[in-house]
C-alpha cells in the first residue's frame, strides 16, 4: 500500500503523460515518442491502482484474468488491422470504451445507496446514458464501415419522430432513476439509451460517418470524465476531458470541411434530396484516354498534383501511386499530393494510407495550401475521388454538397480522372468536370490503370 497523497501524485504524473502524448502529435517527428509516453503513463496508472490505499484486492485474480483476456483480444486486433480498416477499428475501440464507462457507472450506481448526493447520482446517470449511446452507436458505425450492414442511410417513415421519442423517453427515465434510485428504472433507461444510439447512427450516410466517429469519441471522453467525478479520480477527469476536447474539435473541423452543419449531418440532410442536381438522363460525350495518353501528359508536365480519394485505398493502389510519383520526380517533374480534409473515411485517413506506402509526409499538401497552386499546375491526377473535386459545390446552390470546400482542380491545365465507371460519388451527384474539354478519363481499376501508366511512362 502507498499513501493517498503519493497515489494522487502518481495520478497527476500520468495526467501529464497524457497531455504530452497529445502535444507530441503537433509534429510527425515527435508523435511516436508522445504516444509511447502516453502508453507508459497508462501502464503506470494501471500498475499503481493495485497499490492504492482503497484497494481490498479481494478479487485480484479475477481482475488480472480480465486484463490478460483484454490484452489477448486487443493486441492482435490492433496489429493485424489494415490501414484502410482503421476507421472501423477506432469505432470499435471507442464503443468498447464507452461500454466500459457505462458498466463502471452501473456498478457505482448499485453501490451508491439512498444516501448518495444528487451530483453523484446525476453524474452516474449521465455516464450510463452517454456510455450506452456511445457503445451502441459505435457498434452500428463499425457495422456500416465494415459493410456488414448497408452504408446507405437507413431511414424509415416517422424515423425522426421515433428518435425524438426515444431521447425523451431516456431523459424521462433519467428523472425516474434519480428520484427512485431503483434497479428497474436504471435498466429501462440503459436499454432506451442503447436504442437511441442505434437509431441516431442509422440515418447517417457513409460519407458522414467520419463526423459521427469523432462525435462519439467526444462522448466517450465525457463519460470517462463524469466517471472520474463519481469515483473522485482526478486522472479520469483530466484524461476524459482531453478526449472530449479532441473529439469536439475534430467534429467541428470535419463538419466545416464538408461545408455542413453538425445538425444537418446528424439529421440526414444528404438523404432529404438525393436527386437535387439531376441534369437530365442523356448520355453526354466524355473524353476517355488510354494509359499511353495519360503517360504522355504526365511526362511533359512540370508540375503534377495527385488527388487521392478513398477509391485509391479500396483498390490498394497506394504503392502504385507512389511508384508513379517517384518515377515522375526522377524525370524532374514537381509532384505533390493534394489532400482534402475528408479524403478517406476519417479525419486524416488519407495521410495514414499514403504514409503506409512510404510517401514522405512533406509531399502531402493540405487543401488550403494546394488550392492557390492549381493555376500553375499542368496536370491534376484524380485517383478514386469525386465529390471533393466537384465544382457543383461552388456553382449549384441546392445540391447536397453545395458550400463544401473543394480542391479547385478545374484551375489546372489538364485534369485526368482515374475512375471505374461514370457512377457518381458517395453523395450521388453528377460531376460537371468530367465533361470539361480539358478532362481526360481513364476507366478501370485504379491499381491496374496506374500500373499501365507506370509502364507506359517507363517506355517513353
Amino acid at each position, binding site marked *: 500500500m502507498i499513501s493517498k497523497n503519493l497515489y494522487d501524485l502518481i495520478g497527476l504524473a500520468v495526467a501529464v503523460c497524457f*497531455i504530452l502524448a497529445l502535444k507530441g502529435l503537433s509534429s510527425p517527428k515527435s508523435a511516436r515518442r508522445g504516444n509511447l509516453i*502516453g502508453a507508459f503513463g497508462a501502464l503506470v496508472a494501471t500498475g499503481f491502482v493495485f497499490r492504492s490505499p482503497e*484497494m481490498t484486492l479481494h478479487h485480484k485474480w479475477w481482475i488480472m484474468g*480480465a486484463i490478460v483476456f483484454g490484452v489477448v483480444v486487443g*493486441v492482435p486486433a490492433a496489429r493485424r488491422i489494415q490501414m484502410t480498416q482503421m476507421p472501423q477499428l*477506432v469505432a470499435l475501440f471507442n464503443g*468498447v470504451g464507452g461500454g466500459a464507462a457505462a*458498466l463502471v457507472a452501473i456498478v457505482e450506481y448499485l453501490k451508491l445507496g439512498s444516501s448518495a448526493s444528487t451530483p453523484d447520482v446525476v453524474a452516474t446517470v449521465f455516464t450510463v446514458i452517454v456510455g450506452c449511446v456511445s457503445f451502441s452507436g459505435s457498434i452500428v458505425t463499425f457495422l456500416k464501415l465494415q459493410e456488414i450492414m448497408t452504408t446507405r442511410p437507413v431511414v424509415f417513415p416517422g424515423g425522426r419522430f421515433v428518435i425524438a421519442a426515444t431521447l425523451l423517453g431516456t431523459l424521462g427515465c433519467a428523472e425516474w432513476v434519480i428520484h427512485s434510485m431503483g434497479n428497474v428504472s436504471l435498466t429501462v433507461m440503459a436499454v432506451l439509451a442503447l436504442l437511441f444510439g442505434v437509431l441516431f447512427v442509422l440515418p447517417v450516410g457513409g460519407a458522414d460517418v467520419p463526423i459521427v466517429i469523432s462525435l462519439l469519441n467526444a462522448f466517450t471522453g465525457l463519460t470517462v470524465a463524469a466517471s472520474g467525478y463519481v469515483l473522485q479520480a482526478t486522472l479520469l477527469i483530466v484524461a476524459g*476531458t482531453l478526449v472530449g476536447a479532441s473529439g469536439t474539435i475534430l467534429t467541428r473541423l470535419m463538419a466545416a470541411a464538408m461545408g455542413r452543419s453538425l445538425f444537418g449531418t446528424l439529421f440526414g440532410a444528404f438523404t432529404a434530396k438525393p436527386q437535387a442536381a439531376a441534369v437530365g438522363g442523356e448520355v453526354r460525350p466524355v473524353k476517355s484516354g488510354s494509359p499511353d495518353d495519360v503517360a504522355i501528359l504526365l511526362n511533359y508536365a512540370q508540375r503534377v498534383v495527385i488527388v487521392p480519394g478513398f477509391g485509391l485505398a479500396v483498390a490498394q493502389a497506394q504503392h502504385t501511386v507512389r511508384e508513379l510519383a517517384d518515377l515522375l520526380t526522377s524525370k524532374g517533374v514537381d509532384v505533390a499530393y493534394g489532400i482534402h480534409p475528408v479524403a478517406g473515411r476519417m*479525419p486524416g485517413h488519407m495521410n495514414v494510407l499514403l504514409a503506409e506506402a512510404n510517401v514522405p509526409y512533406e509531399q502531402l499538401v493540405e487543401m488550403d495550401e494546394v488550392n492557390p497552386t492549381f493555376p500553375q499546375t499542368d496536370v491534376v491526377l484524380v485517383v478514386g475521388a469525386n465529390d471533393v473535386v466537384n465544382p457543383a459545390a461552388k456553382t449549384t446552390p441546392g445540391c447536397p454538397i453545395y458550400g463544401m470546400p473543394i480542391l479547385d482542380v478545374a484551375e489546372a491545365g489538364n485534369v485526368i480522372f482515374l475512375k471505374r465507371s461514370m457512377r457518381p460519388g458517395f453523395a450521388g451527384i453528377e460531376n460537371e468536370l468530367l465533361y470539361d474539354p480539358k478532362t481526360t478519363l481513364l476507366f478501370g481499376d485504379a491499381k491496374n490503370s496506374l500500373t499501365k501508366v507506370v509502364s507506359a511512362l517507363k517506355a517513353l
Partner: protein
Amino acid sequence: MSNGLALLSIFVLSVFIGFEVVSKVSTTLHTPLMSGANAIHGIILVGAITVTDHADTNLELGLGIAAVVLATINMVGGFVVTDRMLEMFKGKPRVKKDVEAVGGEAK
C-alpha cells in the same frame, strides 16, 4: 473549497488545456490523434479495476469484470494501433531500394 468544486475546477481547466493542445495537432495526424485519444479514454480501466475490487455481489463482480475486459481492449489496442500508424510517419531519409522491396502488406 469543497471536494466537488475542486473536481469541477479540474474539469474546467482540463477543457482549456485540451482545446489548446489539440488545436495545435497537425492536420496530417488527425487519424492518429483520434486513435490516440481513444486509447487515452481507455484509462477508464483504472475506474473499472476500482469498482470490481469493491464488488460485493456476483452481479457487481460480473459487470465489473466485463468493464475491465472492455477497457483493457480499448486502452492496449488503442496505444498499439496508434504506435503502428505513427511508426509510418517517421521522417525517414528516402532510401529508394529498400522501400521498393518492402512492398504492400495487403493480404
